[in-house]
């Protein structure tokens, strides 16, 4: 038995790697969790379908969906790209129009007061109900999906840009005005950069909505696109293909969302400084 007490460093030193090993293990678990959970979900689905003998025209098992995906892969890819194209075209229009209208709304009280009720009323219309009119006007083709994507997604952009502009701190406005800044100076130097995080926040919502819009319109008013593929496959009672198309939609949607978010982080890193967001 040793009478010599351990030196302080002996007390402290082993504690540090022990903690970091636990932390590392936890981080590894966190990194693996999404994969494990996703795999588990599909595994459970597969097992349930087999055990309960669910017919594949009701709910196909993932293995059946995978077979359908392999069989129809060219159609799936072709129609996915068509849908992507429709969504991005509509979204692009919505961004351009939304920013312009948002700037007008944020800059002028008169424009805001006058057009807000109209905008809210328009936004309240479910856009599915507009598709028949679009078909009436433009016929079946690429126009209805693009326009539906546009109509459904511009509203959040307008509101967010206008909010960013109208919530400028009065003090900074005073600083600028006391320097002799014009209204345009204040918009360009303060209003627009300030509304960027609001804009990008709304883009994530808007792109998801645009995607919904184009798929809805495709299923009624187009000969191409995933929406149309689903409509035809379900008419043929080809349920595995319907599900394969749904999964293609999910993958495409996630890709679009992630791309928007990456763009957001690049453009407005300064706004993402909260500890809450970091943790």
């Amino acid at each position: 038995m040793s009478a010599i007490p351990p030196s302080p460093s002996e007390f402290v030193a082993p504690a540090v790697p022990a903690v970091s090993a636990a932390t590392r293990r936890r981080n590894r678990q966190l990194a693996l969790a999404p994969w494990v959970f996703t795999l588990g979900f599909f595994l459970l689905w597969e097992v349930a379908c087999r055990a309960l003998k669910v017919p594949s025209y009701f709910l196909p098992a993932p293995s059946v969906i995978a077979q359908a995906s392999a069989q129809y892969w060219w159609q799936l890819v072709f129609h996915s790209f068509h849908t992507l194209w429709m969504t991005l075209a509509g979204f692009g229009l919505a961004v351009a129009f939304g920013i312009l209208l948002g700037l007008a709304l944020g800059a002028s009280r008169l424009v805001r007061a006058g057009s807000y009720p109209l905008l809210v009323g328009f936004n309240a219309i479910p856009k599915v109900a507009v598709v028949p009119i679009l078909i009436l006007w433009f016929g079946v083709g690429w126009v209805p999906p693009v326009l539906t994507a546009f109509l459904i997604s511009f509203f959040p952009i307008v509101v967010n840009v206008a909010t960013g502009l109208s919530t400028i701190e009065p003090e900074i406005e005073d600083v600028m005005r006391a320097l002799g800044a014009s209204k345009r100076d204040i918009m360009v130097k303060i209003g627009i950069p300030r509304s960027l995080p609001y804009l990008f926040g709304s883009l994530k919502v808007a792109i998801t909505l645009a995607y919904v819009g184009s798929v809805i319109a495709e299923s009624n008013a187009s000969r191409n696109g995933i929406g149309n593929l689903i409509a035809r496959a379900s008419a043929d009672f080809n349920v595995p293909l319907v599900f394969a198309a749904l999964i293609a939609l999910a993958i495409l949607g996630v890709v679009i969302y992630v791309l928007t978010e990456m763009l957001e982080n690049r453009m407005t890193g300064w706004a993402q400084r909260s500890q809450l967001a970091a943790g």
Partner: protein
Amino acid sequence: MPAFVDIHAVTHAYGGVEGLPAVEDLTVRVEEGEFAAVVGPSGCGKSTLMKLATGLQFPRAGTIVVDGRQVSQPVRMAGMAFQNPTLLPWRTTLDNILLPLEIVEPHRSRLRRHKAEYVEKAQGLLAQVGLKGMGDKFPWQLSGGMQQRASLCRALIHEPKLLMLDEPFGALDAFTREELWCVIRDLHAARRVTVILVTHDLREAVFLADRVVCMSARPGRVIAERKVDLPRPRDLEITYSAPFVDIVHELRGHIANARKAA
């Protein structure tokens, strides 16, 4: 001969004709190069006074002359700093300080071609307020006191003849506040800029100002003026000397009366 800032018999109210005046029959004169402090109970129209003097608001009655000209639009040569530093988070500290130069002529048209010269000037100001080398940091990477220093630099970069400070140290801890008193004291001594400081801190007012103006409760009016003839340059130690304490005490009496009257 009007003073540099000459506010004469001014009445101003917000919210239409029937609104209770924020200031009434207010007369304040500040000479060029003078450091004036305005103190008063809360809601006495101190900030209104600031807005009037810079042309951000126009009085309902009375005249305001700044630098020999009647104020009918924002004065275009005032630097302002507030309790809230209001730095723009998407700009680095240096770019924040350069902001006024993007607005005020002749700098506005010169800025692009003479950028280096202006950056050097901004670096010099940063060093003067004790923020040497911090220009590349973003404002949100700085402490509250450092942000307030940067905000002072922004108020001074275009060499305004008039510096308006609206409780600039109100949100800071006592030690940082006293440090910044000294920063302001030195800036004023070095540049002989005219300063109007609005504050509710009597020690701050007496330490910094040549003259302290006491305002009454709403509607604001001048109830007392006190010349502070303590010798300059003043050291923080002076705040513990008997003459200093006497002046603070005297002002405190005025404010107490004004609050009672309200």
